[in-house]
């Protein structure tokens, strides 16, 4: 499978948890390179570097409690940044209170909330669906993603949006 320029970013301060997330997303890694960060500051650096290289960030999975700036603030920043505005944003957390969750929803347009502990199937499915959304919305040629993402929805989008036509 050809590697795309769409990245997945995982931000989590506990190494074991971070490893588990990356392991669960293994199936997608061939096409969507996974980058990791253990704090919001490190995440901002990684994002800055990727954007500089003209890469795109398709999906961010972010823990709520991080050293320094917390996950919610980071997601809000990403939402405000034009280049990561369309990035699909997932909060992966065990402790977020109602206030923080509402804040993430309202101010960062959070796409999904995954409560710890999660199952591998759940995490993978959420990632596939959100990346499918991202690809349909952002990519001109969606065919390379048919075999790894939701083929049904991608075909449906070819049917309705006519992104591929007879030649």
């Amino acid at each position, binding site marked *: 499978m050809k590697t795309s320029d769409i990245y997945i970013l995982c931000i989590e301060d506990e190494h074991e948890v971070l490893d588990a997330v990356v392991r669960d997303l293994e199936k997608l890694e061939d096409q969507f390179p996974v980058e990791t960060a253990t704090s919001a500051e490190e995440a901002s650096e990684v994002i800055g570097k990727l954007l500089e290289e003209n890469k795109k960030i398709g999906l961010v999975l972010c823990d709520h409690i991080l050293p320094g700036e917390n996950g919610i603030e980071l997601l809000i920043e990403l939402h405000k940044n034009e280049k990561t505005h369309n990035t699909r944003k997932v909060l992966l957390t065990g402790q977020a209170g109602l206030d923080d969750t509402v804040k993430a929803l309202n101010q960062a347009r959070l796409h999904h909330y995954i409560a710890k502990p999660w199952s591998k199937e759940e995490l993978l499915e959420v990632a596939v669906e959100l990346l499918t959304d991202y690809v349909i919305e952002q990519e001109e040629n969606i*065919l390379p993603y*048919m075999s790894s993402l939701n083929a*049904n929805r991608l*075909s449906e989008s*070819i049917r309705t949006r*006519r992104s591929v*036509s*007879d*030649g």
Partner: protein
Amino acid sequence: MKVAFPGLTSIQSAGLILGVIGLFVPLLLPLDSLSVAGQLSLGIFFMAAIFWMFEPIPIFATSMLVILLQIVLLSAQGPVYTNAELPVDKPVTLEDHNWQIPSSAIRDDETIIVAVAPGETESIEVEIIDRNGKHVIVRSTELTSDHAVITRPEHRLVNYKPNSYTDYLGTLANPIIILFLGGFMLAEASVKYNLDKNLTRYLLHPFGSQPRFIVLGLMLVTAVLSAFMSNTATAAMMITVILPIIAQLEPGDRFKYGLALSIPIAANIGGITTPIGTPPNAIVIAALTEYGISISFTDWIIITAPLVLVMLLFSWWLLLTLFPPSVKRFQLIMEGTFSLSPKAVGLYVIFGITVLLWVTENSHGIPSSMVAFLPVAALVTGGILNKNDIRKLPWEVLWLMAGGISLGIGMDKTGLAVWMISAMDWSSLGYIALILAFSAVAMIMSNFLSNTVTATLLMPLVISLHVSGIMGDQFNLVITGVIIAVACSLAMALPISTPPNAIAMSTGIFRTKDMAKMGIIIGIVGVMLILAYAIFFWPLVIN
């Protein structure tokens, strides 16, 4: 070392450079037998062919560029031909059929050119009596004092009467393009109101739950839909129908290869059936119409449907043989109901009337392109399609076809097509060999290039082969045109051959070699079948 323009691969970059060189090369070569306009047209042809092959720019962009170059370089109003006048001089009468003419008028083979009518010239043989500096005294019995002798035989207006730029721009409103526009708008509305899905569900119902008949059903429905809708949209829709079936099969089951391959194969073949089925049909019909032969919607179906049906049944048999069903029966999961909102019902009515009028063209005689404006106007009048829907139409396909038609007009008008034909010795080819050659060449080209582009590049040759009369009475223009259209659509050995192939391949359900195996067998059988129809069947239905 890899050299490339920004945003292009090195192959595309090479294509870009080659194409630009191709545009100018004919003007630098000594092509005496070709008029200046023919040379300009050859340059445009080279550039277009190279751009279409290497795709440094999208294929529809090349089509638009062709039209731009034609209106600039070839049209009567373009900078090259506006204000252009043939340099002529009256011959001065001496005695005894002796004339004095400017010495520049004499060509190497001792002939001169005289203007007969605008754009029409005649070559006259003369006998040189005496050369006298700027003038020559010649003897000729053909020359009269009414003749205008062309003083510069190499002038750009010799053998060429430029046509108006509106002829090239007007290709976008060519009747066949309007026919496609009608088809596109019907398809757009069908997708919007899910008519395509609901029809599929309804039509698949009678095929039961036995795998072999479900495959047959899938292929027939795909073919019927792709005869009226775009092959690509049909294939994308049908992929959503087969994915749930494939999910019911064991992971290693080879039957799923067959299932997934059945869709692009049927979509490619189905497109042959009607004039609006796929763009190459339009290129062929437009070229024939330009030449004065009209083929009705009904005629086209009568000519192609028997071949389509045989190809479908053969492909079905082949798929089941190579990838036999592993389960006794399975469930087709399709949900939905026909929408009964007033707008949806309006669509059903307009769709029904339009298709009925199209297929019965021979009994009422209303041209299909005129009928096509019924859905165009009615769908927007009824608010069934709105402004945003119209914006979503595949306009680039219309431009692709318009550029192709325009290229053909230019090649014909400038005498380029006839010149290209005369460069080859065709008479040594028999009619059968010619048919084989055309179908094989079209199929090979179309496996690698866009089907529309292949038809565009080959049709001018077919037309001028007919005009030149080299092949004699046996040559049938309509049959040869149909062969091009059919062969272009039957090329499906590679993922890049057609968009439906690309979509099916991208699902990752089967391997490239499975597609290649099916495609090559279908291609070979297809050429044989084309030959058989061209000899035994088409002469009966085409007169």
